[in-house]
């Protein structure tokens, strides 16, 4: 097709393969992180395949109810956000197989997809009619919006630095040596974006959105059976997809699956480690935190680039 110069039908099954690998990786990795958390607390922890059983159990439930069209669509939007984020970003740099549908302006699209699921969830959770959902969603939107500010500034800084909006070219510029990573060439932008990374991974101290002890689980309060199964799938996919973006932009990308697995795991563990030692922020505290610490670093990154 002339309108999509880089598109070939052969990419579709390969992109689906990437999706399959990433979902399974996410299933195992999130269970592993929970297991590590349990071991730190002196417990044995869940079986490593627990995520698969939970997913199967939720699909196998017999009764489902719907609260309306948006309620039905919200998990779909949420999963679309995760899948879209993954598919429009090169997962493995230099590999013809796992290049996915990346194109010249994918950085902007990725920024949009990070936010897409939250917006869909807002509509669906609102329609479920549960007050806890509405509270959770309003908290989520205000917190994620604030957390995205430093990310946006950091991303503008590095797109100025590399003079491109193409993630593949940004990864290419970081190859060769570990000191070519954006982490070393532009530490301010990296720090600004890492504020957003920790802030949007829904882990303590920024997990007041789902706050299980306070507003029972927040936005997904009314979601059950297959709806919940879709959201669980996204719950393992989305953090990995988001981490892939950070990995590509700031930590040199990955040239093979082993490097991918290690880098994503280390980045994911970063939020987990921060989470286990810090108590939860209230939403106005976290907004203030991002404005006070994240935003100035982001502005500095723009000014010094």
């Amino acid at each position, binding site marked *: 097709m002339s309108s999509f110069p880089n598109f070939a039908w052969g990419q579709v099954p390969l992109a689906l393969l990437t999706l399959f690998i990433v979902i399974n990786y996410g299933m195992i990795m999130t269970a592993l992180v929970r297991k590590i958390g*349990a071991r730190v*607390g*002196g*417990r*044995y*922890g*869940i*079986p490593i395949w*627990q995520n698969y*059983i*939970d997913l*199967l*159990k939720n699909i*196998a*439930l*017999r*009764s*489902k*109810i719907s609260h309306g069209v948006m309620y039905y669509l919200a998990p779909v939007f949420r999963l679309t956000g995760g899948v879209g984020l993954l598919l429009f970003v090169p997962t493995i740099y230099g590999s013809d197989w796992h290049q996915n549908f990346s194109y010249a302006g994918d950085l902007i699209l990725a920024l949009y997809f990070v936010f897409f699921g939250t917006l869909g969830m807002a509509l669906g959770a609102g329609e479920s009619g549960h007050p806890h959902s509405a509270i959770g969603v309003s908290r989520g939107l205000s917190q994620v919006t604030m957390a995205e500010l430093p990310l946006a500034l950091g991303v503008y800084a590095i797109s100025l630095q590399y003079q491109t909006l193409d993630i593949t070219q940004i990864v290419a510029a970081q190859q060769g040596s570990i000191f070519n990573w954006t982490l070393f060439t532009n530490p301010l932008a990296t720090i600004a974006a890492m504020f957003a990374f920790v802030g949007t991974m829904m882990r303590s101290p920024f997990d007041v959105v789902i706050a*299980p*002890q306070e507003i*029972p*689980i927040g936005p*997904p*309060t*009314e*979601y*059950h*059976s297959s709806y*919940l199964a879709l959201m669980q799938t996204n719950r393992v996919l989305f953090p990995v997809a988001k981490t892939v973006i950070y990995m590509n932009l700031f930590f040199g990308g990955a040239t093979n699956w082993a490097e991918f697995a290690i880098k994503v795991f280390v980045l994911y563990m970063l939020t987990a480690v921060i989470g286990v030692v810090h108590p939860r922020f209230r939403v106005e505290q976290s907004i203030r935190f991002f404005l006070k610490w994240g935003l100035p670093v982001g502005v500095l990154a723009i000014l010094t680039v």
Partner: protein
Amino acid sequence: MKDVDDKFRKDTEKQVPLREELKPRKVTTPDGQEIDIDPLRDYFCDAKPKVHPKAYSKIVEDFYNWARSNSLWILGFGTGCGAIEMRPLMTPRFDAYRYGIQWRPTPRQANLLVISGYLSVKTLKRAIRAYEQMPSPKYVMGLGSCTINGGMYWDSYNTIKRLDDYLPVDMYVAGCMPRPEALLHGFMELKRVIREGKGEGANTYAENFDQYKVNQKAVIKDWDMPDYNW
């Protein structure tokens, strides 16, 4: 017929008036529209529960049952003193998570309702609502002698005696109180029951729905909810 052990049954001659906020009324909206509000009808779905058939193939149903038994999500809802025995299960000493048992904060995502000890009539109403909101198949576990025959609350004016009269119970754990080890054993037994395909409490509830409602209404004094609340 009145008996000494029927103190908890309600006095049918004395009607409890409907609470003010639940009465049907006309409300003027901020833009001047007049709308009718009937809280009992508007906020709940009162369709009767259905009997859900098993999966068509036995292999599939067995596979599903295996998954259900290994992913028991408990509703975090403590009703009596037994709730304190559930907490140690989350701690390093007993650690129920390694058996696929987890706690969920909302009935929509829970499969197992643990009635942890005595159930006062007031709490029974909440337990029924929580149970009916859970997706099928769902299981009920009665903890302690109070749920079996009233236990030390046998003579109470405000506590039900047999939980089985009001909700379909899949597994009892006897004792006053049962220790966390007994609870873990109960979970293992419940898993066995589910794997054998006998954990069909939700269907029992749907089949004998009218009888359960008669029993529930015989004790709950202020029945200000629809017969079935989703």
